[in-house]
């Protein structure tokens, strides 16, 4: 099993977390602070190009050059262990490290680009980063700290039937580095189990994509959502109430589009969508609004909170009032 760090971590900002589910980042920080994971966030860090890369808009060389810049930031700040909140960042960064290490020609090209951009200090030297020892997904860090996490659980979430949706770009791209199962992913199930809660485990379509398919959500909406619906229907058959996510893009696909799919199919899925970080933070008693950021969700989380014995100051109904309306 690979060694997973708990310090010298550059918490890698994700563009989708930033503007869609910022609560994922605040929840991550909340958990890290509790269980003693040392991390750092750098405002100079750029997006990995992820979505653009998989829209086929970015070429591999440009993505790699930008990655070299981010690796430089990680190294310079002595936080070489990059931990991503998003599965696409994870896969992209790993891939770029591999290219920079084995492909001398590409490395030289990237270094030339950096030189020409007046950034010679950012040049990448072979093996500056190790794809297996420096690039992690946050779920791996949480899995590694699962016993520690379980000590801080104050809110009982065991009444909900839970299933997990493991991000494709974590499990299936660099499968030799994936922990807790590629063909039957159980990374998040393992975390939840350590918290003393059962998940439904395997279900049909467990490893199937969320359906976003990058361009597909926008250019092929019908087939994209068909994939999402199939999964939702299996989960509904199993009476799943919470689907856990580890990637903001998957979370968007399910959370933003569940009501739309419900309307199309004329049925109701009673499934809440939470990121694994949000779920853990909630179980640790974090505030749903100021830590989990549930006000950015499309499928409201308030009904879930209402069922908890814990008292919450539910702002669901006046949420919009607190927001500027357009």
């Amino acid at each position: 099993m690979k060694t997973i760090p708990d310090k010298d971590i550059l918490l890698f900002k994700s563009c989708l977390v930033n503007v869609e589910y910022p609560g994922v980042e605040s929840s991550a920080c909340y958990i890290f602070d509790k269980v003693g994971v040392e991390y750092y966030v750098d405002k100079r860090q750029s997006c990995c190009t992820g979505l653009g890369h998989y829209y086929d808009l970015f070429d591999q060389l440009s993505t790699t050059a930008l990655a070299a810049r981010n690796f430089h930031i990680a190294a310079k700040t002595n936080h070489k262990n990059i931990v991503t909140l998003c599965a696409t960042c994870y896969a992209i960064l790993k891939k770029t490290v591999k290219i920079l290490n084995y492909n001398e020609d590409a490395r030289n090209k990237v270094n030339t680009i950096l030189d020409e951009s007046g950034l010679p200090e950012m040049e990448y030297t072979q093996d500056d980063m190790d794809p297996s020892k420096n690039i992690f997904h946050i779920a791996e860090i949480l899995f590694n700290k699962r016993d520690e996490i379980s000590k801080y659980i104050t809110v009982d979430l065991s009444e909900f039937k839970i299933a997990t949706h493991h991000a494709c770009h974590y499990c299936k791209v660099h499968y030799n580095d994936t922990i807790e199962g590629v063909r039957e992913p159980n990374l998040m199930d393992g975390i939840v189990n350590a918290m003393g809660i059962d998940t439904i485990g395997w279900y049909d379509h467990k490893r199937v994509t969320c359906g976003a398919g990058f361009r597909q959500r926008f250019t092929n909406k019908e087939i994209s959502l068909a994939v999402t619906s199939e999964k939702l229907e299996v989960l509904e058959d199993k009476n799943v109430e919470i689907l856990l996510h580890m990637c903001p893009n998957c979370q968007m696909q399910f959370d933003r589009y569940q009501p739309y799919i419900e309307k199309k199919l004329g049925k109701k899925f009673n499934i809440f969508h939470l990121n694994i970080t949000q779920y853990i933070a909630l179980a640790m008693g974090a505030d749903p609004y100021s830590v989990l950021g549930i006000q950015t969700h499309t499928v409201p989380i308030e009904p879930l909170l209402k069922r908890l014995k814990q008292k919450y100051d539910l702002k669901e109904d006046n949420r919009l009032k607190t927001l500027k309306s357009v």
Partner: protein
Amino acid sequence: MSKAQLNKNKSNLKIGVFLCRCGGNISDIIDMEKLRLSVKAEVIEEFENLCSINGRKIIRDNIIKKNLDRVVVAACSPITHEKTFQNYVSPLNPYLLEMANIREQCSWVNPDNITATEKAISIVNAAIEKVKYSQPLVPILRKTPNTAAVIGGGISGISASLSLARQGIETYLIEKEPTIGGSMVKVGKLFSPEKLAEECAMCLLNPLVNEAVQNKNINIITNTTLKSAERRAGNFNLLIENKARKVITDRCISCGNCAEVCPVEVKDSWNEGMTIRKAIYKPFSQAVPDVYTIDPENCKKCGKCQDVCRMDAIDLTMEDEIIPMTVGSVVIATGHKTFDMNKRPEYSYGRHKDILTQMELARVMGVNGPTKGELLKPSDGKVPQRVVMIQCVGSRDEKPGGRKYCSKVCCMVAIKHANVIKQHYPDTDVIIGYTDMRTPGMYEKYFKYAQSNEVRLIRGRPGEIEEKDGIFIVRLEDTLSKEPLEIETDLVVLSTAMEPSEGTVDVSNILDVGLTEELFVKEKHSKIKPVATEVEGIYVCGTAQGPKDITDSIVQANAASAKVSELINGGVELEPFVANIDNSKCNLCKKCIDVCKYKAAFIQDNMLSVDPVACVGCGACLWECENNAIEIIGQTDEQILSMITGMLKDKKPDETRIIAFLDSVGYVSADNIGINKINVPSSIRIIKIPSMNRIMPKHLLHAFNMGADGIIMGEYPYNPMYSKTKEKVNGLKQELIKNNINPDRLAFYKVYIPYFRGLANKFNKFNNQIIELGKIGSKIDS
């Protein structure tokens, strides 16, 4: 030869040198007169054809008349006629003859009269120098005791034991389970491609098992595993551990009363866990030995069985026992296990009762299985409407946990089961999802037979199996119609991969035999030595060596037993050029033991010994030994150094000379250069050395001191010690640097017999390189 003669001062030795003209092959190029004049010896004779009967007369007469101590024959390659001349020198010991190869490696590769003659002189000189240090030797005769251990009591082990026993070899058949028979007793039916029919496995196996029981040369030892093994001069000292059966074999009459009262129920592994047995049990009715066994993991020691046993056969206090034994040979027949389906969770095996492996299906359809031979679904006891079989599960799969190889039997097993189903349940639809159907040879007929039995085939490898409302969905692409399919079915059968059993890995580790990348036992050579392992005296057969069917397992078992019997009866005669230990110098550091890939060195009674049968005389151990306690007979330091001296002592100041140390493959390759009359630079002087591992810094430094300008080392890469050699060359280069010699003066090449042209090219290239570097000792070296 008397001791006195042997100890005679080397310079007083009477040496006879016999020069062969080889019908002009040698004398047309080489100035024989000059050669004769430059050689110093007691006798120098020249003859047209030394290998003829007349040549023999000349050699023998001289030996007797002139009382010669040593003989050098300067003629063709030793590969051609060394044996002939070894006969001709009698009454002299054959190992006191040395050949100087002045034909293949001189006259045939050097058309220039002057340089060829110079070269011939140095080749003859080297032989003279070497032969001074030769000693009379006798070939090694290997005698192996008439006993063997066969580890594993499946069809391979039983067949090997029977064959050994029938040849009069005392055989111990060691099996870890309480009964022998292995997988074959479970499979129920066997396919017979010729008859296009299935036969009863038990009916074929039973007579063999009975014979094994009755043959007094076979000792069947069940419930027993190998614990440790030591190799002692061709013998193996084994320690085996006998797990307490807790039933006294001689008393138990197999009435089964005990099992009736035993309160403990466990899954019966003999039926692949589909039925229940008790803690005291007999795996199946025809089990051999025919007695009950207590499974200590599950027994609660309640004593109920003891109370009902009328034979007083049960002894709950019986303890495990360690038994030592010594045997001459070992046959590994530890078999295989089946693929762990946890590694392919998408096939939902274990989540649903009606997803089976082929082995489980065999039990279901076995007359002595859980349904007494009826094809009934484990979940509800109904006959399935459809059976979907999936091929290559875990086989031909590069992904983590998968097996890259083809398991070889599963296509036939699937067809067999499909045929059986179709015969008895014509209304059950059978579909085989496959990538390739591999039915070589006669099996193709059986495959056609299945097709005409209405077995259906869909070409595609399923990605997953799911259950939906009590029905299984097999998802695959019909690759021939380019259509993603969902096949509904109520029974799924997985053709799972064959994997090496834990026993195979454990036993190999204990015996120190090599394993393949896939952890099967590695054969010495997959083509020409298919049942030998890297360790002399240990053989392998059956699925321990790789996936194979019953026929092939039996063939291999018989081959293994033939090899054991060769060792015992043949008493192989081997060349005596092996490592020799000076025990007064050895401090038992064991470094030589660690380095020897042939596992020839061992410690016995606090003394280091070398098994002369296993040792190939490669010399790798010499490097490791800091106490100079090892020498290689026939390749002692004196001999190597004197050959170098002989090759170089008459070197002229303006001449370039290169010493080429070649192993036996390289030497044959160099002969081939001559046979094909390809020219090589006159500077090249070849010295044959069994393995480049023998070459040490002192040899190289001596050569450079004597005036060599360059040194070549050539070794065949497919020998077990090759990796060591490569490491060593770097060390040698470092030594040269330390001694102010340019490391480029040493070249290391791979050699192969058929690539003699390549070797000739390398000689040429290196020669040019050396000429460019200049003479040894020039500026560039310091």
